[in-house]
C-alpha cells in the first residue's frame, strides 16, 4: 500500500513540473499559435542559472530563485523580439524549425558557458526526506507542489481579473477580433513569452535540487511537458495542468513495469492521443 502511495507521490511531484511546462506551452500557443519547442530550454536555464549563481554568490535561495526567473524571462523576451517577431513569411514548418534552432543554440551556448557536467543545487529547505503515511519524498517535493499550486492560483487570478490577462484570453479566442477592439497583439505575444519563460524557469529551479542542472536536461523534459499539453488538449490551460499530473503519475507507475522504457510512456501516450482524440481531454 505504501508502495503505491510512494509511486503516486513521486508521480504528483514530477507531474507538477510537467504541468508547469504544459502551462508555459499553452500560454504561448494561445497567444501566438506557435508551438515553442524551446520551452524545455527555459526550464533548463532556470535550473542551471540558479545553480551556478548559488555556486558563485552567497545570497539566500529565495532571492536567487527570483533573479534566475527574471533572467530567463528576459531571455524569453529577447527570443520573441529577435527570432519570432521578424518572421514574415513561411508556414508552420518555418516556425517549428526556428524554435528548434533556438533550442539548439541555447543548449550549445549553455554547454560552452557551464560545461557538460551537472551542477548541483541544495534543497530549498532541509535535506531530510518527508514522511507521509508511510511513503517518503524529498522535502523539495513539497516546494515543487506548493509553488506549482501557487503559480496556478496566480495565473487564474491574472487571466480572470486583470486587464492584460483578459486581453490575452481575447487573443486566444480570436486574434483578429482582439486587435479590432484595440488589443495590441504584438505586446501580448511579448508578454506571453515572458510569462512562459518565467514559469518554465521556476519549474527548472524547483526541480534542480532533485535532478541537477545540466545543459542537456531541457529537451526531454520539455518534450514530456508537451506530451502533457497534447493529452490535456492543446490550448486548454486546465487541460495542460491535468495532462501534466496524469503523465507524471503514469510515468511513475510505468517505472514499476520497466525503467528502461521510462521515457517512451509519455511519448506513446501523446501519439495515441493524437491518433484517437487529437483534441485531448479538455481541448477546444
Amino acid at each position, binding site marked *: 500500500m505504501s508502495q503505491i502511495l510512494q509511486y503516486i507521490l513521486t508521480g504528483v511531484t514530477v507531474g507538477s513540473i510537467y504541468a508547469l511546462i504544459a502551462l508555459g506551452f499553452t500560454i504561448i500557443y494561445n497567444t501566438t499559435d506557435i508551438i515553442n519547442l524551446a520551452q524545455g530550454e527555459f526550464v533548463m536555464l532556470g535550473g542551471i542559472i540558479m545553480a551556478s549563481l548559488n555556486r558563485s554568490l552567497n545570497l539566500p535561495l529565495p532571492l536567487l530563485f527570483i533573479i534566475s526567473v527574471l533572467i530567463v524571462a528576459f531571455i524569453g523576451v529577447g527570443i520573441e523580439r529577435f527570432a519570432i517577431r521578424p518572421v514574415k*513569411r513561411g508556414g508552420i*514548418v*518555418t516556425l517549428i524549425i526556428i524554435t528548434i534552432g533556438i533550442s539548439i543554440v541555447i543548449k550549445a551556448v549553455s*554547454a*560552452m558557458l557551464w560545461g557538460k557536467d551537472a551542477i548541483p543545487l541544495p534543497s530549498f529547505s532541509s535535506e531530510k526526506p518527508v514522511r507521509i503515511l508511510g511513503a517518503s519524498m524529498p522535502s523539495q517535493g513539497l516546494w515543487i507542489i506548493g509553488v506549482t499550486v501557487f503559480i496556478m492560483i496566480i495565473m487564474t487570478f491574472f487571466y480572470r481579473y486583470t486587464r492584460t490577462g483578459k486581453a490575452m484570453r481575447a487573443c486566444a479566442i480570436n486574434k483578429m477580433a482582439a486587435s479590432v477592439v484595440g488589443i495590441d497583439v504584438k505586446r501580448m505575444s511579448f508578454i506571453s513569452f515572458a510569462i512562459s519563460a518565467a514559469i518554465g524557469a521556476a519549474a527548472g529551479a524547483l526541480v534542480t535540487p532533485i535532478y541537477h542542472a545540466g545543459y542537456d536536461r531541457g529537451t526531454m523534459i520539455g518534450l514530456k511537458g508537451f506530451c502533457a499539453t497534447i493529452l490535456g488538449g492543446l490550448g486548454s490551460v486546465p487541460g495542460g495542468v491535468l495532462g501534466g499530473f496524469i503523465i507524471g503519475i503514469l510515468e511513475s507507475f510505468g517505472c514499476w513495469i520497466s525503467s528502461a*522504457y521510462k521515457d*517512451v510512456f509519455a511519448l506513446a501516450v501523446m*501519439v495515441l492521443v493524437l491518433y484517437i482524440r487529437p483534441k485531448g481531454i479538455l481541448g477546444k
Partner: protein
Amino acid sequence: MFIKRQNFLRKYIWHFVLIAFVAILPIIIRGGYSYFVSLLVVAGIYVILVLGLNLLLGYAGQISLGHAAFYGIGAYSSAILTTKYGLSPWLGFFAAIAITCALALFIGIPTLRLRGNYLAMATLGIGIIFTKVMIAWDTFTGGPDGIYGIPGLKLGAIAIDTDIKQYYFVWLIAIFIFILSYNIVNSGVGRALKAVNSNETAAEVLGIDAARYKLIIFILSAAFASIAGSLYTHCRLFISPQIFSFMLSVKIVTMVVIGGMGNVWGGLIGALILTSLPEFLTIISEHLGNINTTELEIAIYGLVLVLVMIFAPEGFSGGLTKIASLRKRKRLFQ
C-alpha cells in the same frame, strides 16, 4: 525526330551536367583530399534521404519530424539481417526496404489523418519512440553500443569497400532516385500531390483520393530513407542508435527547407549545403583557435538555421527562382 531529340537534350541538360560532374569529381580531387570523397559519400546518402522527404514535405505538404526513424529502420534491418541472421547484404537490402515500407504503411494510415501541428508532433513522437526503443531493446539491437562487424556490399565480384567505389555506388543510386523523383513530380501523381498540398478538400472535390496519395508518397519516402539507411550500414560497417536521433530528423527537414521545398533540385542543393556546413564551421573555428569548437559549431549551426528561416524561408532554389523571375521582369520592362 531530330527536333524531339533536341528538346529532350535541352530539357534535361542540367541533369546531364550533374551526372557528368558527379562522374568526374573524384578524378579532379586527388591526393590528400580523400576525406573529401568520403564526405561526398555521406552527402550522397543524405541526398537520397532528402529527396524522399522532399516529396513528402515539399510536394505533398506533410510535415514529418521523425523521418530519421525510417532511415534507422532501414539501417538496422540491414545490419541485423546480415549479422544476426546471416543474410547476404543484397537480400538484406531489399528485405529492409520491405520492412520499412510495411512499417510506413502501418504508421502512415493513422498518422496521415492528422494535419499541421498535430501531424508534426505525432511524427516527432514516433521518431523519438523509435530511437528510445532501439536503445532500450538491447538484446535485439545491441543497445546504445550499436552493431558492428557488418559485411560490406558486393557488386558481382567487386567489393564496395574503398571511398571511391562507395562514392560512385552511392551517387549512382542517388542520381537514379533523383531522376525517379523528378519524373514522379512531373507526372499525374505529382500533380495530384500538389493539389492536395494547396488545398486538400478542394483536391478531394476534384476526385483525388488524398488519403491514398498521401499514403503512397509517405511509403515511397520511407523506402528512399530505407535505401539510404542500408547504404549507410554497408558503407560504415557500424551503426548505433544515436545516429538516427531527433537531431537527424531536424537536419533532414532543414535540408529540404533550405534547398527549397517542392523542388527536386532543391533537395539536392539542401543536402549538399548542410553536409558541407559543419565542415566549413570546423575550418573557420580552427582558424580562430577556439577551445570549445564543437559546441561553438553547434551554436552557429543553430543560429544559421534560425536566420535562414527568418530571412529566406523559401530556401535556396526558391531564392534562385525569385532572382530568375526578377530578371525576366526586368527584361520585359526595358
